[in-house]
């Protein structure tokens, strides 16, 4: 069994920690303690390892993650898991704005709430939010799935492309070109799978509504000018 390697950010500079996590042929398990809101913790990972961050992190934690399984035992600042390609990021607390922004793959779970612009410009990531999300979430979302177990703020899915959104609670308002869509068997199965992966397997998928693109703004036409 491989040993768990510990980094105390009060004792070791972040640069050294990230550098160690970028080492070639990285393996094993790592624990980062005392992040104390530091930015860019465990960014640019590209190894199938487990990283646990014990505490709150600042901006861009786990940014551009590839392969790694990263758990944050605390809250995350702006842009957690931004541009993630693969692997997983699990936030035990709440996440600030732009969680999972532009991410291409992998799974992001936020057990608490996520602030504005959750899943903005998402390009294939799966995001599961235990609580609510703020306004402009899934803005220009291109691909992937966003599951919201609570409520969504204003302008959900504005200018959305092909991403799918599932919401259990209330939606304050939908953004341009975002509409409610039918839940077919495929969607129930997909949602069930996503919830299970995020540890919320008890949810009844029939209490969720699916949202996606009406695809009416895919081609710029003067008749739609008022929609923008």
């Amino acid at each position: 069994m491989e040993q768990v390697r510990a980094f105390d950010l009060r004792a070791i500079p972040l640069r050294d920690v990230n550098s160690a996590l970028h080492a070639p042929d990285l393996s094993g398990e790592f624990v980062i303690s005392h992040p104390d809101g530091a930015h860019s913790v465990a960014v640019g990972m590209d190894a199938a390892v487990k990283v646990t961050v014990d505490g709150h992190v600042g901006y861009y934690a786990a940014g551009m993650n590839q392969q790694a399984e990263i758990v944050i035992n605390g809250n995350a600042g702006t842009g957690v898991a931004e541009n993630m390609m693969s692997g997983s990021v699990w936030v035990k607390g709440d996440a600030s704005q732009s969680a999972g922004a532009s991410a291409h793959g992998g799974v992001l779970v936020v057990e608490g709430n996520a602030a504005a612009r959750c899943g903005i410009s998402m390009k294939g990531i799966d995001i599961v939010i235990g609580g609510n999300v703020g306004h402009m979430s899934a803005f220009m979302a291109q691909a992937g799935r966003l599951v919201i177990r609570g409520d969504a703020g204003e302008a959900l899915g504005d200018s959305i492309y092909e991403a799918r959104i599932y919401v259990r609670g209330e939606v304050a308002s939908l953004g341009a070109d975002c509409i409610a869509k039918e839940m077919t068997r495929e969607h129930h199965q997909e949602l069930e799978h996503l919830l299970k992966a995020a540890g919320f397997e008890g949810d009844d998928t029939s209490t969720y509504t699916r949202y996606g693109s009406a695809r009416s703004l895919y081609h710029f036409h003067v008749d739609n000018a008022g929609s923008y």
Partner: protein
Amino acid sequence: MSHTTDDRARLGLRESATFDRQTIAAIHRAAETGIYDIRGWGAKRALPHFDDLLFLGASMSRYPLEGYRERCDTDVVLGDRHAKHPLRLDIPVTIAGMSFGALSGPAKEALGRGASEVGTSTTTGDGGMTPEERGQSKYLVYQYLPSRYGMNPDDLRKADAIEVVLGQGAKPGGGGMLLGQKISPRVAGMRTLPEGIDQRSACRHPDWTGPDDLTIKINELREITDWEKPIYVKVGATRTYYDVKLAVHAGADVVVVDGMQGGTAATQEVFIEHVGIPTLAAVPEAVRALQELDVHRDVQLIVSGGIRTGADVAKAIALGADAVAIGTAALIALGDNHPRHESDYRKLGSAAGFFDDFQDGTDPAGISTQDPELAARFDPLEGGRRLANYLRVLTMEAQTIARACGKGHVLHLEPEDLVAVTIEAAAMARVPLAGTDWIPGRT
């Protein structure tokens, strides 16, 4: 109407300066279509420019260098403030960001070939990095844009520098635009978009908003790439003094300032012609910001927007730039708007020298297109050779001027070597009106 100027004078026909024929045609077009005009290229209006500046060659009070015998170096180092591996270019002329999508694959390949042949860099664009482009580019700058199309950490690590794009001179404050005709299966795949849609990308980054956030973002990019790569920040020229100061504070190694003559693949005509400031006005503002922060020449300045000749290169450098970037001129060097395509341009309702419908993807030269048949017309080897030739000419022209001014390196050119031939240019460039010691607003 085919009347000559003499005919019009004889017939008493007088064209309105306010409602001239171009304006009338634009109003008719708007009335018929109900939509604004979208086109490529940069600002076409007459603007104060580098043509309005002249060099003071050496004579009695300055000592010139021999034109063909004495060295005049042209190398430039970009991004040595923080990066482990700064770019060391042989010439101070780089290729500006232009996307695969806006341009065909062979055109991007040719840009890489031409730039590499003379030891300079080329730049990706909105939509990511293609293997062909990386393979053919000795030095490749990877743009980090609001859309993040095709953005991935593997390509980030393959890049020689990273350019965080806040805007471009043709449309400061505007996002990208690529119309459906150019969203081919490959372009759509790279951008994670449905094929054939009109793509309008965001004008703001999705995960940061102000200069304080940018500081954190730049640090993230450095952490991801282990502080190896220079980080550029590119701005469209507007409030240049403040933008450059903020970019430096945020940690930029290199600031790129793109004036309103800078090109675009597709933007609203009204945006191109009415938003932003001329390159000539922006350069001294950028230099003032760098000097006040005591980082001039430590944080390098790249200037773009209307660079055409070695004289433009020399003048931008004399005003304080460390290098320039060319976009439109590079496309022309590849063969854009060449008279050999005249009959095809005519079929499109345009003419060689006027073609700017890059948004349509119908480019007869095979450069600004995703149509495989049109793209196949373009030979990347010949295009690369043409670009390399042009870059050599720009460099030799700049050296010619620098030697005449007594400089052993083009970067030794300075504002003191310049005068202006118009009051506007003197005021903007902050050099004296020729034959006087008058700098409007200063002396």
